[in-house]
């Protein structure tokens, strides 16, 4: 008997027992949809992390005093950096494309009736290069403005929205912490940062203006180094570390009192974490797929017993053992494939509707869809074979007599 005929028989049999067929494949449906949903959302999360990290800028080293992300708990606080450190990095380290010192403060920006509490970031024109941050209007600081520490500023889009509404901001003035400030530019919208912060909620001024008018000293909280693509960030990082240790008089055995981190490193670490989580969730879901396969085997075994008489009739009529085997095997595989397809559809619906809730992009991964489908078909073959062989080995006389 040709395979086509067997498929007709299998489809007939599945249609004849719709409820039983559905219950049989439920395990596969849940397994496939769980695996595919997990992996799809996991891939989305990985992509989201990647995108957010790339928002920090590519090939960027962030240098901060202290260890870790904060400024350290007890003990004397490590000193901030000095303008001379910035110049040293710029002139003595090879492969540095731009160095942007940063001093920050916060305050309430006021214009007419509108006021908005925001972050004030003092830096240099290099900052925009390092961050690869484009302006939506206006211009960046001139060297003269930087040198003089003029009260000019470039606004993030969140600040623009809150202070100026629909009005053109460039050229206008507003007050921040009693300092009257002129808007010379506005920044393109960046959205949420890698740590859930609003990157657009910022007022950027020349660093000297911030130091003189807000922080009251010449300390630099943070140095951002943009590394030339032709150079290895690791090498630049090591050279910078050595230089800073010398400049801060840290002797041989002592730990650094500053830290340099590579955004790419964070990106890799975070991506690695989400990938491991994805694999883990996928593996857990795969177990349910296996359980689904055992479910198919159970029902097929029951079905063989239940249909002993039918098998006897088929054998008496002239079916050879391999045809009966093929029929039951095809039936199991058809069921498993049907379960796989329904599972994939469910996974698609679940991923599309869950992705916005979890704030991850929906990325259709053809590979995992195909893999899950073929795996479910394989489960049909593996778990369908045993019952099918049992059916094929029945003695027609006994099978016909079976009640």
């Amino acid at each position, binding site marked *: 008997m040709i395979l086509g005929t067997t498929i007709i028989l299998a489809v007939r049999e599945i249609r004849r027992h719709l409820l039983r067929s559905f219950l049989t494949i439920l395990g596969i449906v849940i397994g496939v949809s769980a695996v595919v949903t997990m992996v799809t959302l996991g891939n989305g999360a990985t992509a989201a992390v990647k995108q957010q990290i790339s928002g920090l800028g590519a090939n960027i080293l962030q240098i901060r005093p202290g260890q870790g992300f904060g400024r350290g708990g007890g003990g004397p606080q490590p000193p901030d950096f000095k303008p001379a450190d910035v110049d040293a990095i710029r002139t003595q380290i090879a492969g540095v494309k731009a160095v942007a010192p940063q001093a920050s403060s916060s305050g309430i920006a006021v214009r007419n009736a509108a006021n908005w509490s925001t972050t004030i970031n003092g830096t240099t024109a290099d900052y925009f290069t390092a961050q690869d941050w484009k302006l939506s209007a206006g211009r960046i600081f001139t060297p003269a403005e930087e040198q003089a520490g003029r009260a000019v500023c470039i606004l993030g889009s969140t600040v623009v929205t809150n202070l100026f509404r629909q009005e053109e901001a460039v050229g206008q003035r507003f007050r921040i912490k009693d300092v009257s400030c002129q808007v010379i530019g506005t920044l393109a919208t960046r959205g949420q940062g890698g740590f859930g912060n609003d990157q657009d909620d910022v007022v950027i001024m020349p660093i000297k203006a911030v130091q003189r008018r807000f922080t009251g000293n010449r300390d630099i909280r943070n140095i951002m180094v943009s590394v030339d693509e032709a150079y290895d960030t690791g090498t630049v990082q090591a050279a910078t570390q050595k230089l800073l240790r010398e400049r801060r008089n840290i002797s041989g055995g002592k730990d650094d009192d500053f830290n340099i981190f590579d955004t790419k490193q964070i990106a890799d670490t975070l991506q690695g974490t989400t990938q491991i989580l994805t694999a883990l969730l996928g593996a857990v879901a795969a177990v349910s797929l296996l359980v689904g396969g055992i479910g198919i085997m159970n029902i097929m075994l029951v079905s063989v017993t239940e249909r002993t008489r039918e098998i006897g009739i088929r054998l008496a*009529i*002239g*079916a*050879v*053992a391999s045809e009966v085997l093929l029929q039951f095997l095809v039936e199991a595989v058809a069921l498993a494939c049907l379960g796989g397809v329904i599972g994939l559809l469910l996974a698609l619906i679940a991923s599309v509707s869950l992705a916005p809730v979890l704030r991850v992009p929906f990325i259709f991964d053809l590979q995992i869809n195909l893999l899950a489908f073929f795996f479910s078909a394989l489960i049909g073959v593996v778990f369908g074979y045993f019952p099918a062989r049992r059916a094929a080995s029945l003695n027609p*006389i006994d099978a016909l007599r079976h009640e």
Partner: protein
Amino acid sequence: MSAPDPIIALRGVTKTFGQGATAFQAVKGVDLDIMAGDFVAVMGPSGSGKSTTMNILGCLDVPTGGEFRFKGHHVERLDRDQRALLRRRYLGFVFQGFNLLARTTALENVELPLLYRGEDKKTRADMGMAALDKVGLADWWDHTPAELSGGQQQRVAIARAIVTQPDVLLADEPTGNLDSERSVEIMDLLTDLNRTAGITVLMVTHEQDMADFAHTIIHFKDGLVDRTHATGRGQAA
């Protein structure tokens, strides 16, 4: 017409079930010739070996000893699948319990043997409808067994048995589950198939009335053929 070879020839056929001390010989050496076109009724009390012999004749079972030639094939030398192919090509089966597939239309039931022959859809439908027409149930082709009476179910079963135009029809108490009126209808149908289609019919029955429709009656007793006699109906054909 030259004297034809018998379509079925048994020589010293024995069948033993079990081994050693628990062995039981159900058939103890049967010699039998059945000519093509015959209508044979097989009778005998239970345990007489008639069912075992019928299973052997239906190529469902193999003899332990002796020789069984079917259309010249030495069936005792064939394996399971070869016997299945023989059944597929030359034999039709009708059972006491009808043995139709549940939740399957009459036509699909009748088409089943054609599926195993690898006939295409159109041929299956044509041959299936022709067979249903022959048993007078063409109008009932899309009914499932549950929607048919016992007599109708048995007629569907007969249609399934003859759809492949077999040489031999084996019927195991085909009227056992039917009232006398339906039984006569079934016997008339078998008689007609035997006469018009030239199908050799082998039928097991307990009822003398039914056996009387046959041309030849074979009585089994204690694993042996006790006696064979002609009813006289055969000459009429």
